């Protein structure tokens, strides 16, 4: 039953992704200033939002783990973090590809892009720490501490970078886009598609972690009997 529900969810996601792609490439008009290149915007923004939500999921999971000490929350935290890193990778590659033809440079020290970069670095470190600890409860506690602290740093990193930019005035304003209603539809469609993608990936990843626990449990049992 549960598997069937997940399959149905995956099917819905696939349909949504295809319709989002259709809306992005056909339904929405080309941007008046940037032309077709602006069509990167829809998925770039969707991945950025969802990536951020994924790290927020890690933050919530970490917080709840410290309070409740239930393995479930630790599983949620690590699964969400891994998907967050994958989504941020999308943000950090599509961002520069967009920047190159529009502003003439691959990398710009745009506050949002820098914040995502720092966030990604922090959560890669989070995964490294997880890999370095064998014992389950200790791994949960230590990584929860990082998950919480790293997420708290997001607003400060963003504000610091915005202030840094205003002192070095540049002409980059990526948010200055005339939004046609059809563009907004396309954005919402991609946003829901990617959010659903996050949900099914998260469920899958959490299943994987649960199965690993089961493997460890069985191994222990066999070792005891032998």
């Amino acid at each position, binding site marked *: 039953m549960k598997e069937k529900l997940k399959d149905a969810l995956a099917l819905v996601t696939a349909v949504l992704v295809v319709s989002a792609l259709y809306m992005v490439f056909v339904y929405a008009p080309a941007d008046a200033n940037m*032309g077709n290149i602006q069509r990167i915007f829809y*998925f770039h923004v969707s991945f950025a939002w969802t990536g951020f939500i994924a790290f927020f999921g890690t933050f919530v999971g970490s917080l709840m783990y410290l309070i409740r000490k239930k393995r479930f929350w630790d599983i949620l935290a690590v699964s969400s973090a891994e998907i967050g890193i994958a989504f941020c990778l999308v943000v950090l*590659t599509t961002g520069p590809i967009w920047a190159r*033809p529009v502003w003439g440079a691959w990398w710009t020290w745009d506050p949002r892009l820098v914040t995502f970069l720092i966030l990604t670095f922090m959560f890669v470190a989070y995964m490294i720490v997880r890999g370095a600890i064998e014992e389950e409860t200790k791994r949960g506690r230590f990584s929860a501490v990082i998950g919480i602290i790293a997420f708290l740093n997001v607003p400060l990193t963003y504000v610091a970078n915005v202030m840094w930019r205003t002192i070095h005035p540049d002409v980059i304003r990526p948010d200055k886009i005339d939004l046609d209603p059809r563009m907004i539809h396309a954005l919402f469609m991609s946003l829901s598609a990617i959010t659903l*993608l996050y949900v099914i990936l998260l469920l*899958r*990843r959490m299943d*994987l972690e649960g199965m*690993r626990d089961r493997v460890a449990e069985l191994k222990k049992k066999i070792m005891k009997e032998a």
Partner: protein
Amino acid sequence: MEGGLYYLFLAYTILWVINFGYIFFLGKRYKDVQKELEHLEKIVSGK
């Protein structure tokens, strides 16, 4: 305009490469663990 299209398709290609790459990686780990789990369950029930 032509250059714009090149970057547009580059972006969407990389986007899906990363995504399917991750999905593939996830599926592979899933299958490996599943296999190991089945194997272990067989040992446990065999005893």
